[in-house]
Every structure is written in structure tokens, then in C-alpha cells.
């Protein structure tokens, strides 16, 4: 009797954990299905080529937001990737006793800060001093988010390069920086590049730090002007009362999620092992 009870508990609880896993995984498919259905029927050629129409008018596209996103994310990558990359080399190759752990800790700290707070930083640094909103301010915000991601990813993948490769180069008489430049970095380049792509994919989806730095724009925006971006457009289109704008939000959501999926799945395939997701 007691054994039966224990067996029942066993089956019930183990099945319950299976149900939990099923619910968790199915959330992914429900989200993708909604985006594919609603985004798929809304996506058309105009979305990529047309400017937004005046408020409430039907039609038009989000070409300016696509270009704006490329502009902001591109500039953020130009600033953030080199800094993060070299900082990552420092953590993996120079690894000083006291300073390196401090940098590692601050990088993790920065990684865990809500993105809206990074927006406040870019606002006080760039928007207040330039006295206007700009794509540049948005890029700075995103670069601040990108730096710790690239730093930690670079460190992680360079550490996976076998120590014997470094020792071989050093034994042949190469200096340390030559060893790093010609042996360590090329050997770890696949992982490092993948980490960079994942980082860029992550900041490309950020909207909170752009709300009051790059702001938004119904027209094309220069680097020094308020500029539209896809995530911010999704936000404003989704909360608007117009059905046609909801349609555009779905289409933009589908485009954004396609980018994120491509980056993550290809990273998984390239590394053919579990990706480390950005934690915190």
C-alpha cells in the first residue's frame, strides 16, 4: 500500500516535470507561430522600400527604420567591438592578479544592468551635451551594452585555445604580442567571431536605450539627427490605435526575430556545441 503510494507520487511528479518542460519549449513555438502568421501576412515589398505614411494613413513601409537600425547598430559595433575585443584579449592573455578580476567583475556587472539605465548614461553624456537627440547617442548606448558582451565572449573563446599552442610559439622565439596576434587569435577566431555576432544580434533588438537617445523619426535620419530604428518602431506601432500600424509592427517583429534566429542558430551550428547565452 505504502509502496503503491510512493510509486504513484513518483509517476505523477516525474510527469509533472515533463509537462513543465513541454510548456517551456512550447512557449517558443507559440511565439514563433504568432509572429510567422501575423508577420507573414503583413510583410510585403513596400515594408522594405517605403517611408512611413502620415499618422493614420494606410500603407507605407519602414525603410527608414531598417536603415536607421543598420546605422545605429553599425556605428555601435564599430565602437564596441574593438574595445571589447582588446579588453577580452587582456583578460585571457595578460590576466594580471588584481586588475583582471576587477575588470571581469565590472564587465559582468555592466552586463547585468537594465538596458534602460544604459540609456540614461548615453542621455547625460551625449544628448545633454549636444542638446539634441541623435543616432550617435543611440549608438553610444548600444556600444556600452556591446562592450561587456564582446569582452567576456572573447575571453571565453581565447581561453579555449590550448596552452601548448602559445608555448610552441613562444619556444620558437616569438614575442608575446606576436604570439597573440599570429597564433592565439587566429586559433580562437571562430568562437570570437560567433560571440561578436551574438552580441550584435542582441543589441540590434534593444529598444529601451534608444527611446530617449536616438528617439524616433518618420523620415530618414542622419547620424546627427533623431533616427528611427526597428525595435522602437515596433513599440510605437504596436501601442498605436491603428490596425495598419499593428500590421507593420508584426512585420517588423518578424524581420527582427528572423535576424535573432539566424544569428543564434548559425552560432550554434558553427560552434556545434551549447552556446553560452548572455546571462544577467
Amino acid at each position, binding site marked *: 500500500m505504502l509502496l503503491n503510494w510512493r*510509486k504513484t*507520487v*513518483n509517476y505523477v511528479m*516525474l510527469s509533472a*516535470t*515533463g509537462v*513543465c*518542460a513541454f510548456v*517551456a*519549449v512550447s*512557449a*517558443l513555438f507559440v*511565439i514563433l507561430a504568432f*509572429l510567422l502568421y501575423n508577420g507573414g501576412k503583413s510583410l510585403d515589398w513596400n515594408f522594405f522600400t517605403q517611408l512611413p505614411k502620415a499618422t493614420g494613413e494606410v500603407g507605407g513601409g519602414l525603410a527608414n527604420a531598417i536603415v536607421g537600425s543598420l546605422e545605429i547598430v553599425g556605428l555601435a559595433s564599430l565602437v564596441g567591438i*574593438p*574595445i571589447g575585443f*582588446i*579588453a577580452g*584579449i*587582456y*583578460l585571457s592573455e*595578460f590576466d594580471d592578479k588584481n586588475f*583582471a578580476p*576587477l*575588470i571581469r567583475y*565590472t564587465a*559582468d556587472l*555592466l552586463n547585468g*544592468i*537594465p538596458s*534602460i*539605465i*544604459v*540609456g540614461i*548614461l548615453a*542621455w547625460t*553624456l551625449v544628448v545633454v551635451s549636444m542638446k539634441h537627440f541623435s543616432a550617435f547617442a543611440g549608438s553610444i548606448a548600444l556600444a*556600452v551594452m556591446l*562592450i561587456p558582451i564582446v*569582452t567576456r565572449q572573447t575571453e571565453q573563446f581565447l581561453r579555449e585555445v590550448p596552452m601548448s599552442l602559445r608555448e610552441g610559439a613562444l619556444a620558437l622565439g616569438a614575442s*608575446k*604580442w*606576436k604570439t597573440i596576434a599570429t597564433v592565439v587569435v587566429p586559433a580562437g577566431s571562430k568562437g570570437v567571431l560567433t560571440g561578436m555576432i551574438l552580441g550584435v*544580434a542582441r543589441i540590434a533588438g534593444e*529598444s*529601451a536605450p534608444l527611446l*530617449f537617445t536616438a*528617439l524616433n523619426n518618420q523620415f530618414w535620419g542622419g547620424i546627427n539627427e533623431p533616427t528611427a530604428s526597428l*525595435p*522602437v518602431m515596433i513599440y510605437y506601432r*504596436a*501601442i498605436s490605435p491603428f490596425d495598419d500600424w*499593428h500590421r507593420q509592427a508584426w512585420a517588423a517583429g518578424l524581420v527582427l*526575430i528572423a535576424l*535573432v534566429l539566424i544569428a543564434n542558430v548559425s552560432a550554434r551550428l558553427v560552434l556545434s556545441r*551549447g552556446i553560452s*547565452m*548572455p*546571462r*544577467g
Partner: protein
Amino acid sequence: MAAPLAVSAPRARTAAQTGDLVARLIAIIFATVVLLIVVLLVFELWIGSGASRHKLGWGFLVSSAWNPVTEQFGALPFIYGTVITSFVALLISIPLGVGAAIFLSELAPPGVSNALTFMVELLAAFPSVIYGLLAFLTLVPLMRSYVEPFLKSHLGFIPLFTGPAFGVGYLTASLVLAIMTFPFIISVSREALLAVPREQREAALALGATKWESTWDIVVPYAKLGIYGSIFLGLARAMGETMAVTMVIGNSPEIHASLLAPGYSIASVIANEFAEATTGVRSAALVELGLVLFGLTIIINGLARLLIIATTGKGSKRP
């Protein structure tokens, strides 16, 4: 022949040493940028909130007034909203996340477990505005017409489920946050469970425990620090979450006991009001809210990291 060699060898070494020194210096300078950003962030948040800290003092944290016209600002409705939505979200995502992590580490074969974990981790890579989009256009109408009326008619005697069904509000925000936090809980808890030595399971099973008893009484307690760590990680993420919450919480700076009522959170009020706040006490008050949020997430993240470090690296990887 020997003389030129003897002369050139030290020179060559010096050049290489100088090169290394320069390389090291450059690397240190770039690494310092990371540190500088954090220092700058704390400095700007402290300076930027100066006007509000001087004018409103500690009362800011416990006042619930929010009136830009009379320059009265209080953080309480926002802190309340952030805390209550994160709390309810964790009530949902902890059982779900830990349950799924147990399934993935103890029951599923390694191949299946890795594939499913990758899918769950994809959820963590989705931009938060995507969650907001889905929640605002599909979940909110669903809550308004079905879930909230149902809760009111069946559980309306509890103060938590009273008031009109708006669709937006604490409960909807909590649901979205639950979906956004469980990937973190699953991924980190699974790793903590996988780090439990195989012998622990075998000993329990050999003593006649069922699979569930061995898991729940032996394996889970062994991995509890890592599981707590994953929960704190999820909590930090929930508290800092901006876009998805802003779109579904209702954006009303009041405190309500009912979960169905619209509220506000720290991150959402910054997102909504910062661009229109001209310099002055109002923007300083928003920066101070940012400072509060910064402090909260730093503490919780730090705790999560300590707990996770404490559990990783011991034990075998697979049962």
C-alpha cells in the same frame, strides 16, 4: 662573427620586450574602458539625481505622489509595481522553471535535453519588444475578455482579483515577466543539477528510493545554491525589464491591492517620461529612480553570481 651576434641579440630582445610592453599597455587601456564606463555610470546617476535628492530627500522613496505640475514626486508606486510584478512572475516561473530543469537534467536523454535547452535559451535571446508586441496585441485582449472575468467570478472574494478587467495591469505584466524569466531559471538550474555527482543518485536509488525521491530529496537539495542563483538571476532580469512591461502594465502611477488594476514600474516610468522631462526636478527624480533600480539589480545580480560560482565546477557533468 661572434661579436656582431653578441651585440644584436640583446637589441632584438629589447625590441621584442618593448613590443610586449606596448601591447600590454594598449590592452590595459582598453580593459580600463570597461571599468570607466561603470564608474561614469554611477557618477552620472548620482550627479543627475542631485536636484531630486536635495529637494525630496529620503521621503522620495516612501511618497506616492507623482505630479509633474506641482513638482511632487514619489517613488513608491513604481517600486511597488516593480516588486509585485517580479514577485508574481517568480511565483509562476520558479515551479515551471525548476520542474523543467529537473526533467532536462534527470529524465531526458542528453541529446534531447541539449536540443530542448537550446530552444529554451532562444527565448532568452528574443528582444523584449517582441514579447511586448505579442503581449499587447494578443495576451491583453485575451486577459480582458476571458481570463480576468473568469478570475473575478471565481476568486473575486479575494481582494487580489477585484475591480474592472482592463486587460492591462499587474497580472498581465507578471505573466509576461514569467515567460521572460523562466529561460534563465531553466538554463542555470539545469547546469547546477547536472553538476551533482552521479554517486548521490546511485546511493539513494540503491537504498530503495524511487526516482522522484532520489531527485527531490537528494539531488535538488545538493544543487540548491545554483537553483537559488538562477532565481536571483531571473529576479534581476524581471526587475530591469522595460519594454514588455511598459506595454502591458497600464502606466498608472497608483498603488492598488488588486492584481487586475493598472500600475507602473520603475523601468516603465523612465521609458515613458524621460524623453519629455525637461531638465529640472522631474528628470532628476527619474534619474534617481534609475539609481534605485541600478542599486537593486546590482545587489541581486551580485548575489546570483556568488551562488552560481559556489556550485559550478564540482561533481561530474552527467548522471
